[in-house]
């Protein structure tokens, strides 16, 4: 269904039947999917598609990309562990039929196109109930090494991180709207709970913060869409992705958890469903090892780690 809407193709060049580099549109889509608690591994799918599209002349990459764009295949994205060659926390791995795994230490991407080439263990990843996640162990000697341009490789990683943030922003907005509506309806001591400053002022604070997060994601998407190749523009884009990711990964879980408090006991129930968003926002952060990863990138890009 996602492919019918063209969703995996937002960051695939037009020459390959994609939309170019529409990170802005991808981010909007990610936010909608997050708000809808959609089960697809959209961030990883988009990042993989971008990467595969920049591996010119690699027949396996071309084939997987064609399958993804046609909606026939799902390609997940993840990181190979440094020591044991296990890719932990691969979003969508249980249902994927292709994987792109980044070996950060070597700066290499491994493409696995046959589910027989890996084993997926999802036993430790049941907290987020809306998406499947697994630790993946590739079979020794299987898969194809990809050699994308360094820019495409960097951008795929940025895309992944940013779209996860966008996913959480969508959830925050949906739940914030719902909580505001609820606070205007639920009455206690003769008036709506939203008429008490203790509730109203926190909702106002959250609204400002949520707007800040959403704008950061939009801005980062805009900068990435501009195909920054000049060093300074690329640095600006990286900085903005890190800022957006840090803001959302540290802000969204906290904000959602306070919405639970503001909703009161009904929010604590399974059926009310706020917990799905809390679980998912946590997972969005975790998939990109945030907030710490973004924090460290920001320190680097700002030059604080130079020791000068």
């Amino acid at each position, binding site marked *: 269904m996602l492919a019918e809407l063209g969703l995996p193709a937002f960051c695939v060049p037009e020459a390959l039947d994609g939309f170019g580099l529409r990170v802005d*549109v991808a981010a909007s889509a990610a936010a909608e999917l997050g708000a809808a608690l959609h089960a697809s591994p959209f961030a990883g799918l988009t990042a993989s598609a971008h990467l595969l599209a920049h591996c010119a002349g690699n027949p396996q990459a071309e084939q997987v990309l064609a399958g993804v764009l046609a909606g026939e295949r799902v390609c997940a994205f993840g990181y190979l562990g440094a020591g044991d060659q296990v890719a932990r926390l691969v979003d969508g791995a249980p249902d994927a039929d292709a994987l792109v795994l980044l070996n950060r230490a070597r700066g290499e991407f491994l493409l696995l196109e046959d589910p027989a080439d890996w084993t997926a263990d999802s036993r430790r990843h049941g907290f987020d109930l809306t998406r499947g996640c697994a630790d993946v162990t590739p079979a020794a000697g299987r898969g194809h090494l990809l050699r994308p341009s360094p820019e495409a490789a960097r951008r795929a990683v940025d895309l992944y991180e940013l779209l996860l943030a966008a996913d959480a922003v969508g959830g925050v907005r949906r739940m914030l709207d719902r909580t505001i509506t609820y606070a205007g309806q639920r009455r206690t001591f003769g008036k709506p709970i*939203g008429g008490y400053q203790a509730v109203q002022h926190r909702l106002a604070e959250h609204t400002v913060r949520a707007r*800040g997060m959403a704008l950061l994601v939009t801005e980062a998407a805009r900068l990435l869409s501009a195909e920054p190749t000049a060093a300074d523009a690329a640095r600006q884009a990286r900085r903005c992705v890190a800022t957006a990711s840090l803001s959302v990964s540290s802000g969204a879980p906290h904000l959602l958890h306070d919405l639970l408090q503001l909703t009161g006991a009904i929010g604590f129930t399974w059926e009310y469903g706020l917990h799905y968003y809390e679980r998912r926002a946590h997972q969005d952060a975790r998939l990109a090892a945030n907030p710490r990863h973004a924090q460290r990138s920001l320190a680097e890009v700002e030059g*604080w780690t130079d020791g000068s």
Partner: protein
Amino acid sequence: MAADLTADTELTAGGPGGAGADVDAYRQRVRAFIAERGLPMDREGVRVPESAAQERQIRDWLRALYEAGYLGAGWPVEWGGQAGHLPVHDLVVMEELIRGDAYRPLDQVMLAAHAVIAFGSDEQKRALLPRIRAGEHIWCQLFSEPGAGSDLAALRTRAEPDAAGETFTVTGQKIWSTDAQWSDMGLLLARTDPTAERHAGITAFVVPMDLPGIDVRPIREMTGHAEFCEVFLDGLQLGRQHVLGEVNGGWKVVTSGLASERAFVGANAIQLERLFQDLVALARTARLPDGTPALAHEDIQAKLAAALTRVEEVRLIVRDTVERILVEAEHPSDGPVAKLAYTETNVALSELALEIIASAVSIDDDGAQVADRWQHNFLWGRALTISGGASEIMRGLIGRQLLGLPRA
């Protein structure tokens, strides 16, 4: 497949007002002007001249800004404004004044000019507007009272009309009036009809500050400076010629005036970006007990990174707001959102600065001034979260106007 996505994309391209390159050129001119002639302002919120010579410098600098067309360009052409003026230029000027650490006119005071333009008689305009442009008239606001701050309409200062309604006897107390001790003119709000609904019985007056019956007493604030004043009004006699707008029409004057400088909210973002650079400079020069700079430590970097995300959020919130203001499409809550975000983030930055200073055993010589400024900012920052509508008022406005929640 590629064609259909263009419609909703260019939301932010080209910057505020979309006037891209022209605005950049304008900015360069303003920046050069300020670099060459700007009067420096050492500390945030410290505006009152300490000597006659300094007062002369301030007045000359303000006149230079008006003469160059960097202030007052949006006024009607007959009063010195410029045809083809773009509102975004006002914003650029304010941003560059902040970026260049130059003395800048207070937005609350600039609204006096807007009030005179919008509500003044021709005679009042002739008498007052050229003197503002010449740096001859510095204005202050006589709005807040000991019992009427954020709730301005609660003001109790009386301007009692005589039987003919020709003269008014003013009695009452004003407070928190910035610059009142050296202002030439004051914009006064006083109650002329105590029987009317509280917004409807208020009149605005333009008041020469040297009239008998006005006693200005500076208040020494926690920063050690005396920027705000109490103003006691005892038997002050005003006439028809001092009434701005209509008798009992003062609320309209003040509310339209308050809205007139709303694009300046954007300039605050520049200030935060500059303050953040000061914070990094501080962390570079603050030495921890082991002799290393605070900036070399991951925990400090983490706090700086978190602070930077807040600064960037505010920058974008403000930019978003300004873009809407410039096309006159803003929401009533945009101002409160921007003010709350800016002033509270400002406080958070200063708290982090003080944490860094407190954790350091020494500060390198080149960081001493920065540290000193931060200690001042720490105290001063609360002036911003209280004045011009306290944060609590902003949250209430956001709650009602944006979220549609009932009055708390």
